[in-house]
């Protein structure tokens, strides 16, 4: 039996940064995967995916693409994307730390959603919120 884990990363108080959490909440209770919310602790991220056959990580991005752009990466083979993220360790750092410690899942899919507004207290912006059904379908098709 394969073990699949879906991990939504985000902060509820930072606008579109919360999209990963919103996805995790939408998928809570699905039978095809464990669903985990991550508030930004990179070590908890590594703990969550250690031993998994497939981990799907959902996080907000800020790359200059139009808000609501959804990108899907192979997390194990993509180029590390520099600095970023909460608490001094980015998702890319967590992947590299997992690699150094031999604690990566067999497959790692990273779904990025381009955010528009990361200000404190802002709600999800409409173009970002509108991606929820598409992301849920992508995750189900991947898992």
């Amino acid at each position: 039996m394969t073990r699949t884990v879906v991990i939504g990363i985000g902060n509820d108080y930072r606008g579109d940064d919360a999209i990963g959490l919103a996805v995790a909440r939408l998928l809570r209770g699905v039978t095809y995967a464990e669903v985990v919310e991550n508030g930004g602790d990179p070590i908890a991220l590594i703990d969550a995916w250690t031993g998994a056959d497939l981990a799907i990580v959902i996080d907000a991005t800020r790359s200059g693409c139009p808000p609501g752009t959804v990108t899907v990466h192979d997390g194990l083979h993509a180029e590390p994307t520099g600095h970023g993220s909460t608490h001094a360790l980015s998702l890319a750092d967590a992947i590299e730390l997992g690699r150094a410690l031999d604690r990566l899942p067999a497959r790692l899919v990273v779904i990025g959603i381009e955010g528009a507004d990361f200000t404190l207290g802002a709600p999800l912006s409409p173009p970002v919120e509108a991606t929820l059904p598409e992301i849920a379908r992508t995750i189900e098709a991947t898992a």
Partner: protein
Amino acid sequence: MTHKTIRVGGLSRVEGEGSLFIQARQGRITDVQLNIYEPPRFFEALLRGRAYTEPPDITARICGICPVAYQMSACQALESICDVTVDGPLRDLRLLLYYGEWIESHALHIYLLHAPDFLGYPSGVAMAADHRDLVERGLALKKAGNELVAAVGGRAIHPINVRVGGFYRAPSKRELTPVAERLRRARDAAVATVRWVAGFDFPDIEHDYRFLALTHPGEYAILSGDVATSDGLRFPIADWPSHVVEEHLPHSTALHARLDGVAGYLTGPLARYALNSPQLSGLTRQAAAEIGFGPICRNPYQSIIVRALETLHACDEALRLIDDYIEPDRPFVPAEPRAGIGHGASEAPRGTLYHRYRLDAEGLIAEADIVPPTAQNQARIEDDLRALAEPRLALPTAELAALCERAVRNHDPCISCSAHFLDLHIHHD
């Protein structure tokens, strides 16, 4: 070269977002600005009009690393208005939760953020490639803290089990047993951590710090106490506003704190240790003696040793509390609101965290004031930077910038929580 400007747009291995700006002319530093973007102001505004029961949950979101600190300072401020005292096993549970947070936070800082500076690595990730066993030891230590927080607080990040008056539910003794097993191994790892960091090569620098920390007659203060300073000042937490005044500086969204009119005091591990080290657990004092570490440390680089000792103390005390734990008759003391002002403070991993609330007669929050440790330390960190940089202005800018970042990391500033982007720029003017 007569002018030099150093800008570090995003400080690496510092919690949250921040930047650093230093300017020099003719060999003298003319300006040091640690720019920090702090969310407490936003939360203070958010809290107004909310019910008195809400701050423990809302303020816990200010920091992903120290939510328990926010919860504990908030609860105590609100309980003082409601005239409620949380003591006995409920207070012990709060201590237990708080020790979990210290273990989590200190283990992360020691192993992944601070140790790379001493071992010559640009990051914890790079260090992990060569020192896998060491990093795994740090992560196991952190995990023991996470599990303790989860067992008492309901979950490891942003605990949900805390309420004004105590907890929604008290854990059973049986639920704490597996946590204790892991903590026993963590305590061994903490002893090993003390010995490991004590062997680092430390720059020979001491500063004449004015320390500020809580102090408590019965314990190495973490959850509550009076405010004490290294020059002999002592006052109850309710007097905080008459001693500590915050001022706004244009370069920062954080306020700078002054103590009796003077900026530049230091709160955090070095301050706690200097004021309270005789109250550390027996095992911790023994570990300090073994490495020849005296009762006061003024070398900011050696804060890593103090964090290691505090981690050991937290493991040791948490184990004692679990061994002695008797489930409370009820998980909380009922707290009825009334109009009034309340003050609360506790020792977050980074230092003293003060909260003040004013409630109206319906129990709604009319005013909230939060003074986080990093805002208090900001002026002092800038002093450290000035002392470091001025004699070294001839160094290449990148090298000097790296030294400055390192000096900032000594104080583990929690600059803000949590956005998922941080860009690093260094350039000359």
